């Protein structure tokens, strides 16, 4: 039983079919439901078209360096599912998964299923991750999360505070500023990157130097690696770079991390300059690695000379702003998976799902499609296939072993 018919569920289904393992895929909506219902209108993939590789699928269109729109991504995943006849059951909402002595009961709004193994492929972005300070926002201010944001027409004409400056935050802040609103963005820890470097996409480089293939059992601090914010990128036809610096150039006001609401004022961290300097340093360290790779592989003669982006300029960083200025707050403070439907036996005392690279401590339960599950690219379309291939081997052995135990 695979739960979720997004990139992860489909990739897993493809591998299960390849091994002749009988299975179904359940989804609360249709294939690519999150892309259909929980993404803003202008969103494009952050990875270029050539990286939309899935098991048995390669991009063969005319624009390998382009970025798919939201609708094109829905089409990609739908036609991919059709291509191998994914056994999907649409509009089935899973309410409870319970482990039995052998196998699982899966309770849904369409009745209860029994199965030998469960793959939780419901995605990394099931719900918004909101900071505690969100509870203190005055009621007259409209609030929406990045999962609810669609386009600027949803908002009033007044000033907007966008909290968060990773991929979602910078894209939404940019779009709202272009719509004629006055936008302030609260910037916490972030990862700055140029969209293109030395005539290649940054993801081409990260793939080439092996960074995207770094494995979960090889990184120094896996907890930290899994918690890293998303890369500050946008997919656009112009291949433009979007970050704190470009927002400042566009007239967006920058402030530090939103710390608390004190009476009529919002208070922001005074540490923004250090976060920005740190992001610049880390970006340049990655570019150093890329340049070393280019030299080692004899690419320098075919490429423009190395350059370094300008250090980020801030347009001031006030630590207090009057809340009355803002009509709307957009929370782009991250997402998290939701496993509220999953048997509590799968979790530790602090409520964390216990697993080793997606192989859960609860036998027969697997996890797929979350950041750095087994490699740095685990949450990318391009990364879910290799993860699914490894997990399906484990799952296959588990099922074989179980059959022997039962038949004995």
């Amino acid at each position, binding site marked *: 039983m695979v739960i979720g018919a997004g990139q992860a569920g489909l990739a897993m289904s493809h591998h299960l079919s390849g091994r002749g393992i009988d299975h179904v895929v359940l989804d609360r909506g249709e294939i690519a439901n999150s892309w259909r219902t929980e993404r803003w209108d202008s969103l494009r993939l952050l990875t270029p078209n050539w990286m939309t590789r899935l098991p048995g699928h390669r991009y063969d269109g005319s624009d390998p360096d382009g970025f798919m729109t939201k609708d094109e991504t829905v089409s990609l995943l739908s036609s991919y599912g059709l291509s191998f006849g994914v056994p999907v059951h649409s509009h089935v909402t899973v309410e409870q998964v319970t482990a039995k002595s052998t196998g699982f009961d899966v309770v849904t709004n369409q009745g209860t299923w029994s199965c030998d193994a469960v793959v939780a492929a419901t995605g990394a972005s099931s719900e918004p991750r909101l900071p505690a300070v969100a509870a203190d926002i005055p009621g007259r201010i409209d609030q929406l999360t990045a999962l609810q944001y669609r386009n600027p027409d949803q908002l009033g004409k007044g000033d907007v505070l966008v909290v968060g400056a990773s991929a979602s935050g910078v894209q939404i802040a940019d779009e709202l500023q272009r719509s004629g609103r006055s936008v302030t963005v609260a910037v916490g820890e972030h990862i700055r990157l140029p969209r293109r470097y030395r005539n290649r996409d940054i993801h081409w480089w990260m793939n080439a130097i092996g960074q995207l293939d770094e494995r979960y059992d090889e990184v120094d601090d896996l907890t930290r690696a899994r918690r890293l914010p998303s890369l500050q990128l946008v997919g656009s036809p112009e291949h433009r770079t979007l970050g704190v610096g470009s927002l400042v150039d566009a007239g967006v006001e920058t402030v530090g991390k939103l710390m608390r609401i004190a009476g009529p004022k919002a208070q922001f961290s*005074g540490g923004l300059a250090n976060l920005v300097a740190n992001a610049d*340093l880390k970006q340049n360290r990655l570019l150093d690695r890329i340049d070393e790779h280019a030299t080692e592989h004899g690419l320098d003669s075919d490429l423009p000379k190395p350059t370094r982006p300008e250090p980020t300029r801030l347009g001031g960083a006030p630590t207090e702003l009057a809340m009355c200025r803002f009509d709307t707050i957009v929370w782009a403070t991250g997402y998290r998976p939701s496993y509220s439907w999953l048997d509590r036996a799968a979790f530790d005392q602090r409520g964390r799902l216990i697993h080793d690279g997606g192989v859960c401590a609860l036998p027969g339960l697997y996890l797929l499609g979350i950041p750095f599950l087994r490699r740095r690219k685990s949450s990318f379309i391009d990364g879910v296939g290799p993860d699914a291939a490894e997990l399906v081997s484990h799952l296959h052995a588990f099922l074989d072993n179980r059959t022997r135990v039962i038949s004995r």
Partner: protein
Amino acid sequence: MTSTETPAVDNGVNVEALLGARAALTDAPPAAQFQWRASNEWVNGTHSRSTVSGFSGLGAEHTHRQPYTVEADHPQVFASEDNGATPPEIVLAALASCLTAGVATVATHRGVQLRSVTATIEGNMDLAGILGIDSDVRNGFDGIKISYTIDADASKADIEAIVAQSQKRSAVFDIVANPTTIQVEVV
């Protein structure tokens, strides 16, 4: 990280012990709860003396090797006797000390030998705030600027990264940069 991977540098920081503590406190979160304390006594005029001695952490009470005192006063241009640093200067000193300790720790962790580390720290303040002349002016600093001069076996970018990481892990940087709830009572 094992000791064999750490290059042989000696900045007088026991990084092994700190890494051990990090691992131990990850496994035992309650032991990471510390309480820092000071007592303060008015001497005369604007002169007061703070004393630090005990603190708690690792599930136990601890005392410093000896009690330490910090004298605070206002300068003669404020018609005071200038028996010590002003409290805002003590905050600047605390911030610089915290960051410098961080620089030494991070440098050692990254295998960078330090030869000298000096810092100057400036905090600008408009007295119209504390004197109640202009309610739009805050009491505290408008901004703080710290300038480090570091001589070490490392590139400028590596040194900048060490200073940046020190800010990221600094208690006083966070205390000064971010709001903290303060409760003052009279007993």
